[in-house]
């Protein structure tokens, strides 16, 4: 019983130390003859979650159930024990197993296109929308104190325009009711 309690404290300490190390404050004196830190499954999964299984299609490494994935998770555990950062581990996986292990293409070279094209197309779409709207947009002449002019200026707060909102809806509804009944 006593030893168990001790383990918990030790485990907590290890987590704290690791968190500290991950913070990047100090590059951790990993060379100390202290026993290698215990890496929890959660820490392994947190890293594995950012990676994709290199052999199964589109399965994150933390949820993949194959033997191969178990080996990779074990590898991640060892790398974490040796004090590697997440970025280092990711880089190792990319070097060894190709860029497809990352959840999204790396931002370099050709792969920039992945990030550039959608916004560009959307912007182009917006431009087309703008031009079309300009072509279509013919505001109603502000005759009855209603309309865009009134909105923009807000100077002529003719109450009848505002109160017509509800009335308009009800009128529509009433009309519908009359028509349908």
């Amino acid at each position, binding site marked *: 019983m006593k030893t168990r309690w001790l383990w918990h404290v030790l485990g907590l300490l290890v987590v704290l130390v690791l968190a500290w190390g991950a913070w990047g404050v100090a590059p951790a004196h990993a060379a100390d003859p202290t026993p290698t830190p215990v890496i929890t499954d959660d820490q392994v999964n947190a890293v594995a979650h950012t990676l994709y299984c290199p*052999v199964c299609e589109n399965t994150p490494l933390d949820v993949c159930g194959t033997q191969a994935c178990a*080996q990779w998770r074990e*590898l991640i555990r060892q790398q974490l024990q040796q004090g590697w950062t997440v970025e280092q581990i990711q880089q190792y996986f990319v070097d*060894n197993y*190709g860029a497809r292990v990352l959840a999204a293409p790396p931002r370099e070279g050709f792969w920039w296109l992945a990030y550039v094209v959608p916004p560009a197309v959307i912007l182009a779409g917006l431009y*087309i929308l703008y031009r079309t709207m300009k072509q279509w947009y013919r505001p109603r002449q502000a005759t009855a104190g209603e309309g865009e002019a009134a909105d923009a200026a807000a100077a002529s707060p003719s109450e009848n325009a505002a109160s017509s909102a509800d009335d308009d809806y009800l009128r529509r509804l009433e009309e519908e009711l009359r028509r349908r009944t």
Partner: protein
Amino acid sequence: MNATETQTPEPTPKKRISWGAVAVWGGLIALLVIVGLMLNRTQRGGVAIGDTVPADLEVTSFDGTTYRMGDLRGKVVLLNFWASWCTTCKDEAVALEQAWRMFQPQGDVLFLGLDYVDTEPDALVYLARYDITYPNGPDKGTRWAQTFRISGVPETYIVDKEGRLVYKKIGPFQSLNEIVAAIQQALEK
């Protein structure tokens, strides 16, 4: 892609050329070309029989020797994709090693094991267990695998003395004879 390009609702009836139409057709053709090329790749595999295997592929074996495809002209090269986590690879491991020991003395045949997405300690255990003596190295960045577009492991490719692909086997070899026959065929070419 063609999704947004088609959204050009400008009729532009007076102009002879409607840029919207050009864009739409261009987008459609580009898409079809991309998909067509990809389909072609999928259908024939990365390297088809008779193609020259890219010379710049190289692998550094676990013991540190580097083999470059372009430097291996004049030898029949058997490329075997495998992994320690692969169960069917084990079925052919013994036969492959036997074949290697048969051909090694001749000097004009090289076996090259390409360890596909694996971890080094497990790979070394595997090599030791099956007493594999031909050079093996990790397929770094899956360069080889992507070039050949392998669909799994094991897969074996035989390249003739001129560096052309002459044989491919998806899945494990069933017998030593099958391996020997394939190599002999490549030697005779």
